[in-house]
């Protein structure tokens, strides 16, 4: 009987290890371990054994049953894993086929950069102010120290609605509205459209966008202006960005400066893009002229401030290497998709 058991074990083990399907393995289990299985059949003959032999054979039989069960079970695990593997392999798809994209749009590049600038300044404690585009002469010129017959008016070819109403040529007009309505401390930026009668070409447009900035408080210095602009430029162009201030003249600031940013292409060495200068002109800035402060009812002996105005198109064109400003206003879908 012992031999019979051993022979069953050998046979079962062999068959289990060579089984190649889950179904075959299941049959194997029934064949050996089922109620009518071979091992069961043998165990039924246990009664014929002597009292001494019975526990020995019993133990052996249980041992063999356990071994066969283990063998079948581990083979089962292996076969299942293999089956899954085959199924997965069959399910493989061409992952290089295009995906199903949810349809979304994009903001205009001018808005992308405008929003970025707004966020930078919000973070610095500036609010965003709005002002009229169709404006009184007073706000666009006179209150900004550009009285009638001022020669600097010539440089801003103005669209007029009436003698006294015009399309603002600069967002600086918002400065005056803000200072008339708000006491210092003042920290605002004001993005918006401005208008000048320039014919459309690659670098000119009769309508373009500026972002004005204004800070008025006690003890505001020109060094603060420099620091603020440096922060802006570093946030826009990266930490290694450098700026350079050149003396200039704007009637509504004194001192006035034109602000150049280090050429992105040559990093100050001088190249074709910056015309050998190493720097590119980016914006105008200065300390708010005492006459402008006083005109808005702010005591210039107590308060000082700075203001700056940057052209959005110039920054956008530089950032995306757009060489023709007209593209921004043509709004061709193939252009809009790129940003």
């Amino acid at each position, binding site marked *: 009987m012992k031999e019979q058991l051993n022979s069953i074990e050998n046979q079962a083990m062999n068959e289990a290890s060579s089984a190649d399907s889950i179904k075959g393995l299941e049959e194997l289990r029934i064949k050996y371990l089922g109620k009518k299985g071979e091992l069961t059949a043998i165990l039924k003959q246990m009664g014929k054994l002597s009292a001494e032999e019975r526990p020995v054979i019993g133990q052996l039989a249980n041992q063999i049953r356990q071994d066969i069960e283990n063998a079948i079970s581990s083979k089962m695990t292996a076969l299942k894993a293999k089956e899954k593997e085959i199924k997965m392999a069959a399910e493989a798809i061409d992952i290089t086929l295009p995906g199903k994209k949810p349809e979304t749009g994009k903001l205009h590049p001018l808005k992308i950069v405008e929003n970025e600038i707004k966020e930078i300044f919000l973070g610095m404690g500036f609010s965003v102010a709005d002002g009229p585009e169709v404006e009184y002469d007073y706000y666009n010129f006179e209150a900004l120290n550009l009285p009638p017959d001022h020669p600097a008016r010539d440089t801003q070819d103005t669209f007029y609605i009436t003698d006294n109403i015009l399309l603002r040529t600069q967002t600086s007009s918002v400065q005056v509205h803000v200072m008339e309505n708000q006491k210092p401390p003042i920290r605002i930026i004001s993005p918006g459209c401005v208008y000048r009668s320039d014919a459309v070409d690659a670098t000119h447009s009769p309508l373009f966008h500026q972002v004005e900035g204004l800070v008025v408080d006690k003890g505001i210095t020109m060094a603060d202006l420099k*620091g603020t602009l440096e922060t802006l430029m570093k946030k826009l162009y990266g930490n290694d960005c450098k700026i350079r201030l*050149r003396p200039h003249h704007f009637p509504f600031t004194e001192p006035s400066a034109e602000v150049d940013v280090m050429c992105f292409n040559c990093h100050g060495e001088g190249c074709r893009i910056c015309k050998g200068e190493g720097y590119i002109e980016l914006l105008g800035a200065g300390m708010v002229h005492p006459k402008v402060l006083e005109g808005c009812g702010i005591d210039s002996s107590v308060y000082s401030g700075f203001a700056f105005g940057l052209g959005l198109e110039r920054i956008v064109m530089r950032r995306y290497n757009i060489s023709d400003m007209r593209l921004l206003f043509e709004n061709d879908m193939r252009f809009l998709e790129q940003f």
Partner: protein
Amino acid sequence: MDLSMKWINDYVDLNDIDIKAFCHGMTMSGSKVEGYTPEGADISKVVVGKILEKKQHENADALFVCQVDAGLENNIQIVTNAKNVKEGDLVPVALDGAVLPEGKIKKGKLRGVESFGMFCGLETLGLTEHDFPYADPEGVFVIEEDCKIGEDIHSAIGLDDTSVEFEITSNRPDCLSVTGLAREASSTFGKELKIKEPEFKGIDGDINGILKVDIENKEKCRRYCAGIVKNVKIAPSPRWLRERLRASGIRPINNFVDITNYVMLEYGQPMHAFDLRYVKDQHIIVRNAKSGEKITTLDGEERELSEEMLVIADSEKPVAVAGVMGGEYSGIMDDTVDVVFESAYFEPVQVRRTSKKLGLRSDASARYEKGVDPYISMTCLKRAFELVEQLGAGEPVKTVIDNDCFDSHELKTVDFSAEWINNFLGTDIAEEDMIKYLNSLGFEVKDSKVISPSFRIDIEYKADVAEEIARIYGYNNIPSTQFKGVAEAEYTPAQKFTRNIENAMTSIGCYEISTFSFISPKYFDKIMLPADSKLRKTETITNPLGEDTSVMRTTILPSMLEILSKNYNNRNEAVKLFEIGKEYIPTEPDKLPEEPLRLAIGMYGNDIDFYDIKGAAEKLMQILRINDCEYIRASDSDAFDEKSAFHPGRSAVVVKDGKAIGILGEMHPDTAENYGIGTKVYAAKFNIDDMLALAETEVNYKPLPKFPATTRDLSLICGDELPAGDIEKAIRKAAGKLLEKVTLFDVYKGKQIEDGKKSISYSISMRSHDGTLTDEQADNVMKKVLKELKNIGAELRK
């Protein structure tokens, strides 16, 4: 302002500063350099040659063969067609390999005879007869200068100056002069400034016996200095003077005209010279023009004057428009004997207005209108006389007329405080350095006051003085600091709302556009606005670039349609766009318009129909929390005049709480045709302000349902004309509180459905918060619903 580098070196020694460093330094201290041009930069290997022999070419009647000493080891042979040269002449010789503006010169054969170069005429060298009046403008330039054989042409004829172009800002008219820029250079580079007071000898004589000057308008002409030069010899100016004018961009004419230009360039004071013969009664009157009075100016144009203009007149007629241009009649001629020099101060606004009204600008008016040094008139008259004597051009009469209407020649002062300036700039500049900078620019500092030199008319405030110090100290030496104080900032609700719309629109699949806010009035016709529409009343630009950009838009819709049309014409198959922009709605005369913010949406493409634009609007409203909007036929609403642009059967006005907030739909086929769009095109316009007012700002959480929902499907049959909106309304009304959701899932017309009817199917979901609905409860609701539906003509489909 073009500056001759040779000239500025008379006043400040810049020889050890290279031109690039000069340009950079000047720019960084506030005199912006646009660029510089070395004269004759495009000429090389051209030397002075002497013609030793000139013989007729054997094979050509029009050619000559010359042997030339060009300072080389051997004489060279040059074939020329020039008739105006002879043996012994000095001429510019372009050697083999020479570069000229018109190209390279190479040796070659002319009719079988070798030629090793070319003789140059004035034009070949980029010059004119004004530069060398003695030269034949047609032939080869026969040089009459003091020069050596073989000498480079640049130095031989003074073509070795460098012209630097400055962009001078309107506040610094003093820098429209060589002395002004010299002063800036002296301060910038720390060099000594050498300007001396002019002196002349003059001849005896009483000016009052020769000339009388009366100023009638003392407000506009503050000072008028005049002097006489007798026995003048009109001739070309000497070479050095011509060279300087040329480098300054001014054409030499004759010695007297050149002297007036020279003094203007040197001091920034316009001068005028005229022939005493033509000053009737030898009486100059500075007065306002008479209405209709005419003058032919030096440029040959006859100009009609008006009363507010100031003229220099004799006892009969105007001889010059004050500060703008002289009259042709009294100009300097070759036979002029006695010359009157004028050096005056005219009020800037006066000159500016006259020049603008006449459409006539001159170097003089450009300076006067910005403001010349008010007290320099006499110095400049003297300088002109000094030059006349230096040139041997005539005899100035020693006594001069100085009609000075200024109360005094007091100089302007501004308080000076080094501490204030440092606090203002954020710097720590020593007071003595500040004073040094100011002195170098011509300011005096005395008793805590800065005294401005008379030419600095722009200094009025402490801030002006601070700028002077800052720019010489160097803007880039000012530290960078962060200003103090804390401020909290956030978007206003309106700004946040607009940002939400931007985000919503892109998430809906639309691309943002940016358009011009001025349009053509013809656009109103393109969208077929009624002739009496209020939208046709616009803010109109009086000086537009063209009709296309002449009125401020009162509706944003045409801007969107233009861009859709452009995209269609560029063969973009499908586009979905939006714009957030202003409209400009006139209010009262002489008042500013309102500038409400609008949203425009536009789309076309194969798969796009009315329900796409409506769906976009619905999604937008959902995102913005503008709930329960109604959509009514645009033709039934007068809220938007733009409805004329839409298909009457396929457009809707969006209404929330009785307020029309937008219009949307398919464009009228005529509109599409007007825009050249050959496919169905859809657009919408929304009033952002109204949307903001109607949007829910508070969000309240509703508890998640504890009990399951019961759903009943309902297939109805009704007249085709019954709007689904009415059916849904009826369902909602009848179902009451237990209703959770009504979803339309099918609309069917055709087979099995009677003509003129449609089948329409809804899924109705009901739920109670108190317990699971029983079938009985649900059936009761459905009974009520069916009853209500019957009332509007919809019945259960059998």
